[in-house]
């Protein structure tokens, strides 16, 4: 069965410092992995996705993530946090066994301190 673990429920960083949001997954098949962002009282927006092409994936707003099969990880990073990055972030997995379903992590709330 698939599962996604977001290792931190809350992360605080200072503006201008790097961001690291951690995600580990379990999947018996080649997974597709996604990061979504949710700003307060908004819907979810796709940041980036991995679908078995390049292991380093670049997304919107300067975010990127690296797929590491040996570590079953897909951590999200950004070199320099901006105040507008404060939001909830979700790591999501699917694979060809589940076909149509996506599995969400419980989310990481990012606070950016001015």
């Amino acid at each position, binding site marked *: 069965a698939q599962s996604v673990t977001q290792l931190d*429920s809350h992360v605080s960083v200072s503006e201008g410092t790097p961001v690291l949001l951690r995600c580990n997954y379990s999947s018996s098949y080649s997974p*597709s992995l*996604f990061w*979504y962002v949710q700003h307060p009282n*908004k*819907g*979810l*927006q*796709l940041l980036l*996705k991995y*679908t*078995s092409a390049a292991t380093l994936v670049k997304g919107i707003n300067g975010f990127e993530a690296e797929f590491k099969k040996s570590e079953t990880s897909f951590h999200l990073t950004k070199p320099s946090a901006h105040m507008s990055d404060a939001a909830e972030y*979700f790591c999501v997995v*699917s*694979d*060809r066994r*589940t*076909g*149509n*379903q*996506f599995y*969400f*992590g*419980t*989310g990481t709330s990012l606070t950016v301190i001015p």
Partner: protein
Amino acid sequence: DAGITQSPRHKVTETGTPVTLRCHQTENHRYMYWYRQDPGHGLRLIHYSYGVKDTDKGEVSDGYSVSRSKTEDFLLTLESATSSQTSVYFCAISERGGQGDEQYFGPGTRLTVT
């Protein structure tokens, strides 16, 4: 932004009453999903549809039913609402389902059952 609307956006209802939430898309995507979002749980799948009249259960389907009579509309019904169904409900669409394809989300419906 993907053309997804949800109605109503907010609803307060009493325990025991039926409630129907509507998701409408203009993208002609095959897959449609209903999730609920609760603190500490991320998004959990209620039901999804892989075509007109084709639906399947998700992780938290008890107490919910769905219908899809047209490609563009996916209805979620709470036959007899309970306080445990107070939540934010999100609809999502996907062109090819979980096989490497991302989801696009609606703005959400905040449901309160008193």
